[in-house]
């Protein structure tokens, strides 16, 4: 079969376009940035994580800075959450983590509030100040209970 420069060029363009599409899907859409090793991986323990799931976003002031990479039970039967954060992030060691919900039925995510200490969190460190998920059911239960007590008086 004869070599044909135009055909080779078209095949080359097709291959380039195909790999560009693959790269777009994995880097832009798939978000290759936060999943690689070398991210700032810190732990946070919560009494209750509610509906928090791995891959939930972690935000500071509403800006996404990482994601939840793992949730497991520690020895004290608390939920130990591993956060994978942007490695360029400088977070004071007295920062606090809070589980919040976006919207009434929305997903739960973690929001960090930076502290004031001079020392910064290093990979493997633990965020000491945490606030658990607020479950709607327990809030309603509390509300109904309180109302019942008041009317009983």
């Amino acid at each position, binding site marked *: 079969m004869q070599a044909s420069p135009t055909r080779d060029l078209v095949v080359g363009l097709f*291959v380039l376009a195909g790999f560009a599409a*693959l790269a777009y*899907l994995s880097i832009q*859409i798939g*978000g290759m940035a936060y999943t690689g090793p070398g991210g700032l991986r810190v732990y946070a323990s919560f009494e209750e994580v509610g509906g928090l799931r791995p891959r939930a976003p972690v935000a500071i002031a509403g800006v996404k800075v990482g994601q939840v990479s793992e949730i497991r039970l520690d020895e004290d039967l608390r939920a130990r959450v591993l956060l994978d954060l942007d490695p360029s992030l400088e977070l004071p060691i007295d920062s606090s983590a809070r589980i919040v919900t976006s919207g009434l039925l929305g997903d739960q995510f973690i929001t960090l509030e930076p502290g004031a200490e001079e020392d910064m969190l290093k990979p493997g460190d633990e965020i000491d100040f945490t606030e658990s998920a607020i479950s709607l059911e327990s809030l309603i239960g509390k509300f109904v209970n309180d109302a019942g007590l008041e009317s009983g008086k």
Partner: protein
Amino acid sequence: MNSVETLGFRTLMLVVHLGRLGVFVGRVARASVLRPTRLRRFVNEVFDVGVLSLPIICLSGATVGAVLGFQSYVALSRFGAEGSVGSVVGIALIREFGPVLTALLVTGRAGSAMAAEIASMVQTGQIDGLRMMSIDPVHFVVMPKAWGMLFAMPLLSALFIVFAIAGGYAVVVQLLGLDPGTYITSLEDAVDLHDDVGQSVTKALVFGVVVACVATYRGYTSEPTSAGVSAATTGTVVAASVSVLLLDYVLTSFWGI
């Protein structure tokens, strides 16, 4: 009793065909490491399978994305959750529609042509002619075709998904007036590199192997008659499409949630 015999015969024939397919794939794999590499024929196959399938892949991708965006917008806006259209479109396309529809389209457009070409070479004695010149037909004809199909499939699937996302964007953002940032952000947030893009590429590669093997095997083992050519073409489309759809479920369930 007769129908039971038929069932037994059919089952045995299925096993025989699977065994022959295994031997055939082994021959193709062995031919792949032999010299010469047949690079020129491989490039021509990538042209036939990849470049010539581009128009149908891009057009189908854009329409599938547009329909998907439209329908999920209609369904989700009932709950005031239009913001999630991007994640529905993205997950459905990347995990399932991209690889599966690409495999079905490529089977119909290029797989059938591949089987018909090899089958007519069998019928007109060209395969025997190659053997007489002591050129292995598996090495010369089959191997570049199989690799061309396998190589083109993930690239076509990725292009299908990109065009579908664009088609969804056109309908949901331009036509229905959703905020462009909401569409793109919810799409990017929902899609994970390992779970979704990895699954998509794996599926496209597996489907590429399936379509390539079925098309070349059916063509190569066809009867040397005109009816044999048409049977090989039909058989390729039916067997490859059904295998792709069955395998898709198996792969999805292995991948988990």
